[in-house]
């Protein structure tokens, strides 16, 4: 056995500090996450995240399932960007099999991904306002998200866990009402989104509570691997849609949203900007939608050639990486999901040191954590 064993003491609390357990049943941890806080008065000294309360062993389950069956497991990681998760695995399998899918399928995938990005950000906005104590935002966000869910329900048959994108294209073609409904949604939401700003973004209580709180510098964001809107809020250009366009992102103009302040407010505004940007992308894509072909011809049993494959997509929370090792069997030998939330969570300690408990809630809200994605 090589290596050396060092004795290390980990200081949990100092004399004048006390410990509070925040979670797993706490309203603002958005699920079953537990923070162990060391507090001095109300000032946070240390945050130790404890996860695993909803660990289902998806990676182990994947090793026993076929590639088509895994799709429904990916839904259940980051349930707010289920389409993107499905797409990530499908793209990985398609690249391994060297299959080119029809243009229509690509564009529909991208539209669905952008729609679920808007939906995810709406839900985030709703819950973030709730964390901040503005209780009405929750219902406004949910109300607007309802339209997106209706679009999903009409086309995919389910509202949250779609399992709609599959290796080779889509499960079935979109509903005839798909395009008109999206157009209707975009006109509706273009009117409603400024209301979000009027209600919360401009509010003086909100701005003073969020500006300068939870600063994440550019270097720290890279060092911790914080991606997605949380990373871009610190000026870290990490949008996979720009750097490695997949699906139909190379057909349209995508502007990466970047803000450099790195505080709660910049992460907040960045997500609002992303909603505008996503609507713009959808509008461009609808014009490009060709008539036929939603799936490529696939073998009934998928066997990937032995080797290792990697595919990354941009979900609503950051970069989802799929690392797949195949040994020419029906199911993967190893399937690792590089989930964005996992990396985003562990900057909590860094960001909330020295802030108040109320800020901790705001910071964890601004990182937009989805716990099942951390635990997998």
């Amino acid at each position, binding site marked *: 056995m090589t290596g050396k064993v060092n004795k290390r003491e980990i200081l949990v609390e100092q004399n004048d500090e006390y410990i509070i357990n925040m979670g797993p049943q706490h309203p603002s941890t958005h699920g079953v996450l537990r923070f162990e806080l060391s507090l001095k008065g109300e000032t946070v000294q240390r945050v130790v995240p404890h996860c695993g309360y909803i660990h289902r062993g998806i990676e182990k389950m994947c090793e026993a399932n076929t590639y088509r069956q895994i799709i429904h497991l990916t839904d259940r990681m980051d349930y707010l960007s289920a389409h993107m998760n499905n797409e990530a695995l499908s793209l990985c399998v398609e690249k391994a099999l060297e299959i080119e899918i029809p243009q229509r399928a690509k564009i529909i995938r991208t539209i669905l991904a952008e729609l679920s990005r808007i939906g995810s950000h709406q839900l985030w906005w709703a819950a973030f306002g709730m964390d901040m104590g503005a*209780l009405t935002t*929750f219902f406004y966000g949910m109300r607007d998200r309802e339209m997106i869910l209706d679009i999903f329900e009409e086309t995919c048959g389910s509202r949250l866990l779609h399992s709609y994108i599959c290796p080779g294209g889509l499960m079935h073609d979109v509903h005839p009402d798909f395009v008109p409904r999206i157009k209707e949604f975009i006109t509706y939401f273009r009117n409603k989104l400024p209301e979000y700003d009027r209600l919360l973004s401009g509010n003086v*209580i909100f701005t003073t*509570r969020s500006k300068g709180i939870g600063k994440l510098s550019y270097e720290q964001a890279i060092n911790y691997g914080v991606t997605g809107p949380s990373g871009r809020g610190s000026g870290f250009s990490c949008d996979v849609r720009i750097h490695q366009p997949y699906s139909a992102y190379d057909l349209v103009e995508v502007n990466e949203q970047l803000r450099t302040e790195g505080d709660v407010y910049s992460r907040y505004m960045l997500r609002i900007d992303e909603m505008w940007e996503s609507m713009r992308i959808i509008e461009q894509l609808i014009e490009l939608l060709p008539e036929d072909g939603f799936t490529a011809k696939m073998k009934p049993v998928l066997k990937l050639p032995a080797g290792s494959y990697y595919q990354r997509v941009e979900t609503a929370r950051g970069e989802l990486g799929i690392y797949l090792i195949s040994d020419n069997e029906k199911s993967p030998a190893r399937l690792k999901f590089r989930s964005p939330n996992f990396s985003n969570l562990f900057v909590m300690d860094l960001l909330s040191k020295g802030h108040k408990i*109320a800020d901790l809630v705001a910071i964890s809200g601004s990182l937009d954590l989805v716990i099942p994605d951390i635990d997998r």
Partner: protein
Amino acid sequence: MYDFSQLTQAIHLFLVQHLNSSSVAIVELVLVGLLFLTMYAILGLTLVYMERKVCAFIQNRLGPNRVGPLGLLQTVADLIKLLFKELLMVKKADKFLFNLAPFIVVIASMMTIGALPFAKGFQAIDLNIGLFYIISITSLGVLGILLAGWSSNSKYSLLGALRSGAQIISYELSVSLSLLSIIMFTGSMQLSVIVESQANGWWIFKGHIPVFISFLIFLIASTAETNRGPFDIAEAESELTAGFHTEYSGIKFAFFFLAEYMNMFLSAALAATVFLGGWMPFHVSGFEGLNQVMDFIPPIVWFFGKTFTLIYVIMLFKWTFPRLRVDQLLTLEWKYLLPINLVNTIVIAFVVVMGWYF
């Protein structure tokens, strides 16, 4: 026209004829006590229902609509549920204080309601230091909150209680100072005198800008004093789960809940009484026809109309604004409200001395 004192006098005379003097006193006390307790309960239930409906309409919802017509009996059903719930006790809690705390809170809010003039003659006791009494009793309520937080032996509760303590100590100042402006105008702390002084116009109109400023400050500070959003840092649902009443259940929780709503009613009623003329109808000197029409509306309607309008505004605060952080809350008080209030007090003293008001 609508004078409650006639009614009370009639009852008093009736009792004097039939009973000896000590029995009369006892019967009258029981009657008044029953009347006010019933009113307290009904007001509490109404306010809970109103809040749920107001927030529902703000949030594009319907709100309670299952129990009774328009969900009117929903709060009654909730009350029955709370009455039957188990009273949980934290193992290492300080049992005596833990049980005492909700009663302090609820009694403090109950004691103030007697001093309010609901209509002409409809007032349990017309103290000559009415305003002073109300201010001092409302600040007793925080004692209950502090005890609840301390005795629960829970860190969340303790944090909530400490926050609440800091908050009430600060905002008490603003409340008193803004009420001081009207005391300076009327020269009396007796609530009936303050109401009578507004017979020819409410103070908010008579005292124009300086009184309007104190009215705004009173509204903000009293919202803060009642621990309501956006100043509900003592409960801070998303931070401290439920703050000082985390460990309470059943009817003891209901007491805290009820006291919060009654305090809200009290601050709205006080603002209505002091700034908006209480039960006085809307009078404009010179327009006799209008004044006659206004007089026709009973004073109790005027009083509750004004109070519930203010309650709506306070509810709108809660359902619109994000919660303030602890330090922001204190900044708001010590850096904004208090200096403005002090300057405003001097301005009002000047206005009073020079007679620059209507």
